[in-house]
């Protein structure tokens, strides 16, 4: 479980996060949604410690992340997997080396065991015949799978995904969403996905936090989201003509 408690974040005079408090539950796919520029990515990066928060607290299973010393932070980070918007694979390493990288750095396992674990992760994300390829030689969807495989290599407790569908076609987006959800349930992780894709919301949104101009405006499940009377959230959901049509047809 990860808690954000009254998190504020400013860059100079500009306050990007304005006192966000929420709980991201274990074993669930938690979604942070909102328009571009609403502060989603800043919140996600604050949660993982890539940004220092201006005030407030972030707790991992009850322990304040901000109060941890460097050694404890380092240990905690090995329990964190992250899928970046652009995959952030290491260009100079092959697919297998990318996935093996956290194992090479943080385990004393034999090469055989590390390879075995890497291949397990590769199989888990349904990647075929890609071990020896470099990131530039595979498609965007495959890169996301490799990034997921790398993120789960050390069997983390927490998984963060920043816009996992960015740059993918709708079909591949669904496959990646489903993969993230399956892995979350299978490994009992606390997963936080940052997205503005309504298909993801309807597909995997077990716990959804809506951020608007740096504030949390709404929190609930995918089943509740269509019944909320909130102008900003309605504008966000029904920006898609498809969803608007579904709503209008249901209204009839």
């Amino acid at each position: 479980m990860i808690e954000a408690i009254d998190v504020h974040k400013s860059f100079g005079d500009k306050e990007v996060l304005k006192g966000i408090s929420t709980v991201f539950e274990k074993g669930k796919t938690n979604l942070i949604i909102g328009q571009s520029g609403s502060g989603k990515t800043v919140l996600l990066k604050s949660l993982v410690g890539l940004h220092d928060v201006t005030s407030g607290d972030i707790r991992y299973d009850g322990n304040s992340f901000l109060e941890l010393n460097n050694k404890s932070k380092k240990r905690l980070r090995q329990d964190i997997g992250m899928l970046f918007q652009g995959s952030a694979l290491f260009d100079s390493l092959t697919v297998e080396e990318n996935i093996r990288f956290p194992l090479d750095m943080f385990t004393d396992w034999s090469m055989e065991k590390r390879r075995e674990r890497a291949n397990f992760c590769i199989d888990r994300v349904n990647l075929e015949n890609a071990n020896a390829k470099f990131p530039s030689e595979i498609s965007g969807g495959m890169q996301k799978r490799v990034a997921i495989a790398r993120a789960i290599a050390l069997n983390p407790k927490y998984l963060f995904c920043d816009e996992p569908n960015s740059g993918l076609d709708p079909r591949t987006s669904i496959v990646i969403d489903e993969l993230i959800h399956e892995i979350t349930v299978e490994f009992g992780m606390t997963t936080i996905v940052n997205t503005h894709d309504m298909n993801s919301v309807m597909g995997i949104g077990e716990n959804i936090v809506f951020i608007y101009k740096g504030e949390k405006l709404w929190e609930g499940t995918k089943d509740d989201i269509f019944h909320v009377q909130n102008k900003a959230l309605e504008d966000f959901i029904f920006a898609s003509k498809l969803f608007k049509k579904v709503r209008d047809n249901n209204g009839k």
Partner: protein
Amino acid sequence: MRIFYHLGRYTLFLKKVFGKPEKHSVFVKQIIREVDKLGIDSLGIVMIISVFMGAVITLQTAYNLEMPIIPKYTIGLAARDSILLEFSSTIVGLILAGKVGSNIASEIGTMRVTEQIDALEIMGINPAGYLVLPKVLAFVFIIPFLVIISMGIGILGGFVAGSLTGEVPGPEYIYGIQYAFIPFYIVYALIKSVVFGFIISTISAYWGYHVSGGALEVGAASTKAVVSSSIQILLFNLILTQLLLA
């Protein structure tokens, strides 16, 4: 005032760079890879520049010393001292600031804008130490060898140019390069090369590491890396000359 900002940030960056490496075996492999990438790959350009540099120094000296009372071997002597004292360390340093400096800045800058550095940080790895320290150690280790090769090839270039044009007969040139030889000049050049290697690798890494934005900013960081490394090389060349030869 901006210079103090960068000086402070550069100092803090160096503190991060010289942190304890994550895993010894991975660290050693990286150093070997960087020696190949930064050093061995630079061998071609160093050799080409050195041979022409030696040839031009010899011919220019010859054309300016066309007096019967000055023996021909002084051309070899002048060419040798110019190559040892200045050209093989400073000029090669400036050339490597362009080649290696832009390579380091653009590689690390690209890793920054594509979030690869964030990915390392999330894993609990010190990105500055992991990415930059092997480059610094590898380059500081390999640059004296490049300078020694440059010296040899520069002097050889002078010999070939002098002989082919007939300006300096071979035996005279060989006598000249041995005449009044001061071994400390080689030590002086090697000390300078180590300092220049450190300057090029750390300053270029500093600019690359602190890029924010996209491809344009990576290009700008690469340019800043080359310009500021070159200026620092010239500044430290002056300081070291005063300290070591005065």
